[in-house]
């Protein structure tokens, strides 16, 4: 049993990890075919796994309805939506369009799912405003720097800001001084400071990601198998 639970998964992880790390260096079509085949396997496994997911959805919501837990009515709505969508989907042959027109299934998707998804996404605009308000309150020197930077970047990104703060050149004797406008400062903030920080984060992420991958391939990190003390 311990062989099936520990040694076999670790052996598979090691073999597949090393094989697909080496695959990166092999341009031969055999290597391409191997990765395509494994991708196909993953799709098949995902298909089977979806059954687990659907079973989980049914189980969780059936229990809610049976126990009449708070909000159990929503579970009823969920079941009704699932049954309706499946029925309409079968009736439309799984097609959203037929004979140049929209099927009932297509209508259901376009006039329920799409608006609902759009509604969720549009809430983001309001949430950005409220999050920005919290972030830009000048409560500390750091927050003040953030506030000033944000205002400058916002000014540099809109035509009004570029018109109000266009930048200019001043000549004093033989010397010419260029005073940067909102656009120039924005570009500098984004291309120098912002890029530098992003790259630093990405380097750390890459190192951490490769480190964790190696730990998993070499069997040093096993907690993803459940438990983690038997190093």
């Amino acid at each position, binding site marked *: 049993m311990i062989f099936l639970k520990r040694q076999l998964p670790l052996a598979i992880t090691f073999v597949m990890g090393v094989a697909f790390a080496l695959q*990166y*260096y*092999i*341009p*031969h*079509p055999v290597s*391409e075919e191997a990765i395509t085949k494994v991708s196909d396997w993953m799709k098949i*496994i*995902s298909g089977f*796994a*979806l*059954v*687990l*997911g*659907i079973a*989980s*959805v049914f*189980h*969780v919501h059936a*229990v809610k309805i049976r126990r009449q837990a708070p*909000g159990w009515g*929503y579970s009823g709505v969920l079941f009704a939506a699932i049954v309706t969508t499946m029925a309409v989907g079968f009736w439309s042959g799984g097609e959203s369009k037929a004979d140049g027109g929209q099927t009932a299934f297509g209508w259901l998707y376009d006039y329920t799912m799409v608006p*609902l*998804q759009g509604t*969720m*996404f549009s*809430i*983001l605009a309001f*949430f*950005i405003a*409220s*999050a*920005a308000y*919290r*972030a830009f309150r000048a409560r500390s020197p750091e927050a003040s720097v953030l506030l000033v930077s944000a205002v400058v970047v916002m000014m540099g990104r809109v035509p009004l800001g570029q018109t109000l703060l266009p930048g200019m050149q001043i000549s004093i004797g033989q010397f010419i001084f260029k005073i940067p406008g909102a656009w120039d400062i924005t570009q500098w903030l984004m291309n120098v400071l912002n890029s530098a920080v992003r790259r630093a*984060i*990405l*380097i*750390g*992420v890459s*190192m*951490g*990601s*490769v*480190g*964790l*991958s*190696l*730990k*998993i391939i*070499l069997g*040093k*990190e096993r*907690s*993803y*198998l*459940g*438990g*983690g*003390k038997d190093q």
Partner: protein
Amino acid sequence: MILAPLFFFLLLIGGPAFAGPPTSPEGFRVLDTPNDAGKSLSLVWKAAPSDSKDRTVQVWVAKSPPAAFQKVAEFPSNTRYVRTGDFPWWAQPAGKGDHYLKLPSSPAFPITDGKPYAVKLLIREGAQDVWSEAAEGVSAPNYFNTAQVNNLVFVLAFTGVLLGSIAAARRNPHVYLRRIAGLDAVEEAIGRSTEMGRPILYLTGSGGMSDVSTIAATVILGQVAKKVAHYETTLKVPHRDPIVMAVCREIVKEAYVEAGRPDAFKEDINFFITDDQFSYTAAVDGIMLREKPAANFFMGSYFAESLLLTETGASTGAIQIAGTDSDHQLPFFVTTCDYTLIGEELYAASAYLSREPVLVGTLRGQDFSKAFIMGVMVIGTALATVGVMLQTDAFNYFLDLFRDFK
């Protein structure tokens, strides 16, 4: 007699009218395209001072033995040069400044591996033409990309450093770890939930099990679940991916067993919602608003849903801890969460929480590698700058070692 010096002068300064008739390209050869999957040939020939936009090069190919030649490409003769950075110095099919053209298989002229092909160039300027000698080449797939040998060497070196650090950590397990406030707060968040009698919500992000950040999130879940089991608090882990759900179920089960509370484990701790981004977000927001978890964990990779989740969580007054490698979502997490694990801290979390010497040792290995990368960046930037100032390629022998070649 009078015109002779003028003619000589004009010849010296050069000009299209006096460039002379087109000449056959020097050093023309056909070779198998290096480091590829086959079905492609590469053409190489020397650059000529008379190359110009008015002089064109036509590429004619035939299946050999002699078959009819077919035109497959045409371009100005002052293009298709080998430039710095195209090939590493240890795997150069042509010298810098030479002409190089990759001829892939196309529907117009399919190239089959293992069969010889004859190629010749036609140099044309105005009404004047000149043909090169026909050269022959055979395409073949390669078993190793020599241009990426530097990458392989660094991966092996990194693996060696990692294993060395693990061995060192085994001998001396007292490795210093800097404080990570977000991970220190895990205990506080779980304690708060216990005191308030409210559940803990843990999200593993949008990725599947093939994402390293999702694996990191599941590893942290194991540590969190152990503490949750110890405190006898309710844990809820809604999922977008059924495979991640199955893996997390096993992890949480093991964590409860390790904590000595197998009886407290419930299958429903991990549950699937949907794989649709905004439907999932709406469902999780609903859970937050109805059940008001006292602590929300957002680990793994996230996209547009990050702010929708965390802002809703913030509005319920929950203590929120996020950890992500999605750099584009970091500002939202930093703004709306109490603690944020930035980038690599997500990967360091399992070592930090478990304090296992083996895992902690790998962090030291990563730090050595990062120090090496920082050193290379400083030296590389200096050499590249000096190289541009001195107009020399001499430093490319060093810079190519750290360049990513495909």
